[in-house]
């Protein structure tokens, strides 16, 4: 039993990393070389929030830091800044996951909205503080809006297809203990 759940734990962790790599792959496809004045959703952050709220043990802090830093490096962002903000945001959500477990989806959505907007605008503020060029407000606002709009869909995919569900009372965790 313990072996089984332990291998499942690592399988799901690997699945999360693979998911991030697939998202990065589609980001990097050379399809959009002209500037546009809207931004798509930040799928990596949204998936990290959804997974972290459901099963914090599937997305340990070390993995999160690694994939966010990799995304920063590959997507040509200032390395580390987005990563550290996103890491703090998701860890904060993880620590609140137990309280949100029994709450409705609306409550989860609101808390994710707060975290995502703090990450995006914190990033903007710190870029300005470090005397780096800040992107236009439209880009930030469309990114925020798109991320929040797509979040229910991401939860649906996480819950339905990937099978990452909230722990129910009486479930066993990876070490065979009750959660």
């Amino acid at each position, binding site marked *: 039993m313990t072996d089984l759940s332990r291998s499942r734990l690592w399988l799901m962790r690997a699945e999360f990393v693979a998911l991030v790599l697939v998202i990065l792959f589609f980001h990097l496809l050379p399809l959009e070389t002209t500037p546009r004045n809207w931004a798509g959703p930040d799928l990596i952050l949204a998936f990290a929030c959804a997974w972290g709220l459901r099963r914090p043990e599937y997305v340990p802090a070390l993995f999160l830091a690694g994939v966010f830093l990799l995304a920063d490096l590959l997507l040509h962002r200032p390395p580390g800044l987005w990563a550290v903000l996103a890491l703090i945001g998701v860890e904060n959500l993880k620590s609140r996951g137990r309280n949100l477990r029994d709450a409705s989806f609306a409550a989860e959505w609101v808390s994710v909205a707060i975290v995502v907007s703090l990450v995006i605008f914190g990033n903007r503020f710190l870029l300005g503080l470090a005397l780096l060029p800040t992107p236009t407000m439209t880009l930030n606002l469309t990114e925020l809006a798109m991320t929040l709009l797509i979040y229910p869909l991401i939860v649906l995919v996480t819950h339905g297809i990937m099978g990452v569900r909230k722990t129910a009372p009486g479930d066993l965790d990876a070490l065979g*203990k009750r959660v």
Partner: protein
Amino acid sequence: MAKDRSSSSDFTGPLRRLLLAVLVLALTGVFLLWRIDSPRVERFRAQVTDRFVPNLDWAMAPVTGTINLLRDFQSYQRLSEQNRELRSELRQMQAWKEAALQLEQENARLLDLNNVRLDPRLTFITGTVLADSGSPYRQSVLLNVGARDGLVEGWATMDGIGLVGRIAGVGKNTARVILLTDASSRIPASIQPSGQRAMVTGDNSAAPPLDFIENPELVRPGDRVISSGDGGVFPAGILIGQVAADPGGRLRVRLAADYERLEFLRVLRHHGNEKVPDTAHVITSDGPLADPAAPVGGNP
């Protein structure tokens, strides 16, 4: 059960918090290091990209091809309309071709008369675009040529027609091109008939604005913008685009390169402009230097 849970969280909690603190510090450190010593971290980024992206090439090419095919399918719907437009454009082109041929002959004759030696060192390497920047905040593409092919930071990159950007970040097998539209791109340019100097400053829009024009009244929409070679990093005389005025009256460059389809890019080898260290000496002692200039002014 409750006791069990609290004891386990007592045990893992501080460790987890310590790990989180270490990670936060490390990431902040990376950012600060990048802010202070950007070239070192950018080199690291180039290495990571170099390791990562070429491995995905086998999958990227077919997926990009399929998506482009689907996009093209939409344009097939207005095929007849496009055909008509193309025919009329072709008629205009034939007139231009005739003019170009005449000019080419005239140019060859004049070059021959002047005994001009074109710079033989301005050769190019062609690379294909592997990936784009992946985010709407930055405008850059990744090429499949790198330090292995002798690329150097700062070299100019163009498609068949006009300037596209400059190399920034060279890995072993890949190099990143910062496009002219990126917010960090600054290219010294000169505007053609009037000879005014200006900077093409990217601002994340499709038509970058022209800054620091000495005398904007001499610049008209439709003037040609070419690279000026100031600063010695860039070869002079590469076409950038045409001047256009936006509704607010600000002068911008309509870029000549086809940014919709960046597929093959040329990287121009450039070994720096040669400097003339003391101009006074050259002018006073080299009397013949003024001679070749005379027929140029006299011929046309």
